[in-house]
């Protein structure tokens, strides 16, 4: 019974098409929402605990295993934090190669999520495989586009999942100019494919919802943010990343039995594509901006459902950026910056496809980790995800349960949530049902 009095319960025990084990619980009594929870039951893996005592050089490889979807984000945030401890900066072509690797991850992850995990919701398919029955050409195109991202990671760093070539200080081995050139032909094709993906996502039936988010992301004076920058927000935050934990904190919200990240003294915030896009619009490449404009996006975007278009726009950017880096590449003499091991504290933040990933480490004079702290994007977005659930219920209260449920699932998938990542900071309660 869609409207009127009584209790409606919508429970999804195991959310599909997200990374990791999450659930959703909604309870509506007499038209009022009592519970709207995005739950986590991913088993804890205790990374921060068992990293203590390990060599600081192992952090990129260990933390990559927090997430098979965005290992490069973990490798970059941890490497930057360790480099800050050691007092070195990785610049020049070594830094450009890091951005190139990250472009590979953005292309792979964005296309996977937007086209294969999220788009089926807009068109009413259970999966991309089901969608392929009617949209075979599109699915073939996006698979090929996704592969271009994977090919960048495989060439530059050995493999696409848990790449092996990135290290504190740079790389184990840098590619030759000729090796990178082998990517160009596919990237040129990928540019057209990514533009087509923007048009296609813009043609999807788009739910209308505008949320008053405080958008948060990295900002760099010269670049669309990937590996570094200051933390900024749409409502006035502008801090060095070393101040991250002064501004953001986890609180225990009784309503969800979970630790959720908030801006101290304020509340929910949003990291990810909408934040990056809206706060760095002018740093996109001209073609990425053109694609956004033809897709009907303005210079900012506050509709969470349109994140699917923004991911496609960022894919255009990543392809452009990859081509720019390859075009200007000169093989460096040394694959990594050398350093003397020092004790100290370091911070690193980078833009994982789904939002800002912050790491903080304390390292002893023996080069071993004393303390580790990781704030993954999905934990930071959890409160916004739940606020969106409330808004989507409000706007769709007349839908029958099965349709409302699907709409709510779609709104969670707006975030490309990575629950495998999030379990470090969320309490969990195993539902024994």
């Amino acid at each position, binding site marked *: 019974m869609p409207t009127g009095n009584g209790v409606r319960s919508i429970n999804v025990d195991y959310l599909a098409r997200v990374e990791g084990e999450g659930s959703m619980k909604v309870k509506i009594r007499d038209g009022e929402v009592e519970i709207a929870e995005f739950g986590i039951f991913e088993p804890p893996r205790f990374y921060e605990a068992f990293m203590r005592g390990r060599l600081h050089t192992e952090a990129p490889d260990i933390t990559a*295993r927090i*997430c098979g979807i965005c290992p490069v984000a973990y490798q970059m945030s941890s490497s930057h934090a360790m480099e800050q401890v050691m007092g070195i900066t990785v610049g020049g072509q070594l830094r450009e190669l890091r951005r190139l690797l990250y472009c590979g991850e953005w292309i792979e992850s964005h296309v996977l999520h937007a086209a294969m995990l999220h788009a089926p919701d807009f068109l009413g398919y259970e999966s991309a*495989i089901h969608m392929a029955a009617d949209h075979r050409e599109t699915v073939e195109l996006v698979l090929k586009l996704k592969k271009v991202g994977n090919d960048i990671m495989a060439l530059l760093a050995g493999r696409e*999942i848990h790449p092996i070539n990135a290290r504190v200080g740079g790389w184990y081995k840098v590619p030759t100019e000729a090796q990178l050139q082998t990517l160009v032909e596919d990237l040129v094709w990928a540019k057209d494919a990514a533009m087509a993906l923007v048009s296609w996502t813009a043609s999807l039936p788009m739910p209308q919802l505008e949320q008053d988010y405080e958008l948060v992301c990295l900002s760099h004076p010269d670049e669309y943010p990937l590996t570094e920058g200051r933390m900024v927000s749409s409502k006035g935050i502008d801090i060095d990343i070393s101040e991250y934990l002064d501004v953001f904190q986890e609180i225990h919200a009784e309503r969800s039995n979970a630790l959720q990240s908030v801006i101290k003294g304020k509340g929910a915030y949003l990291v990810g594509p909408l934040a990056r896009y809206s706060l760095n619009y002018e740093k996109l490449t001209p073609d990425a901006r053109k694609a956004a404009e033809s897709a009907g996006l303005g210079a900012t975007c506050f509709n969470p459902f349109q994140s699917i278009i923004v991911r496609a726009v960022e894919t255009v950017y990543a392809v452009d950026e990859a081509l720019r880096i390859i075009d200007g590449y000169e093989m460096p003499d040394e694959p990594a910056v050398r350093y003397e091991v020092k004790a100290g504290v370091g911070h690193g933040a980078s833009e994982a496809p789904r939002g800002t990933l912050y790491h903080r480490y304390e390292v002893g004079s023996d080069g071993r980790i004393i303390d580790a702290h990781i704030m993954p994007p999905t934990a930071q977005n959890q409160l916004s995800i739940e606020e969106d659930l409330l808004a989507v219920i409000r706007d769709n209260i007349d839908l029958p349960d099965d349709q409302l449920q699907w709409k709510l699932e779609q709104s969670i998938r707006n975030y490309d949530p*990575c629950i495998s990542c999030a379990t470090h900071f969320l309490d*969990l309660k*195993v539902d024994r049902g």
Partner: protein
Amino acid sequence: MAERLPKLAVHKFASCDGCQLTLLDCEDELLAVAGAIQIANFAEASREIIEGPYDLTLVEGSVSTPHDLERIKEIREESKVLIAIGACATAGGIQALRNARDVEEFTRYVYATPDYIDTLAESTPISDHVKVDLELRGCPISKAQLLETVVAFLNGRNPILPTYSVCMECKRRGNPCVMIAQGVPCLGPVTQAGCGAICPAYNRGCYGCFGPMESPNTTALGDQWMEMGVDSRTVSDAFHFFNNYADAFRKAGDMYADR
């Protein structure tokens, strides 16, 4: 009527999702695979859940909660063939570093409200709890080995998977030995092949993603590392990495930790 396609299920336990992602990373083959096997229960890819029993079940991740201990038994019951994929499922994963440590202290360290955490003292491989028909090694698994395994299953034959060491793959790839040529410590001589010897190809030592090869001589290798100037704690850590709970690596790591 077309013949009924075999039904595939993919399940996740404690893990990073990378091994099941490997299936979605088979961009050239995914649609062909979906045409030969029905993706019946794969939450990361589809909302649709078709009821079991399943002809082929892939299980990613380690068993680490009381709930998962029950769940793996149910999955085994509804699966004709069950394959454990990746280092978490075959050896407990990196998170098995908590085994034989103080898990309560770990919980207090990571979580503000430890009472909510429901966890077992140990993170263990799938084969500790149910019969496993085949194990695919790797952190992550190899795309080629996954496809070979699915194709072999569809054709009713055994997959061809090497049990020799990474050294063989280095020779085949033409990698100069990083231990001899560059003095870089490498786990390749005791690690099972399957990755394609990628680390040595990038001038770094193997770090053991695919776990111990058949009959590895871990002591000969560990002693060689120490002769190269590596301290015993670092040798121990090298064995106690992504396959730390695999029998041969666990024992080797324990032995060097005590030196």
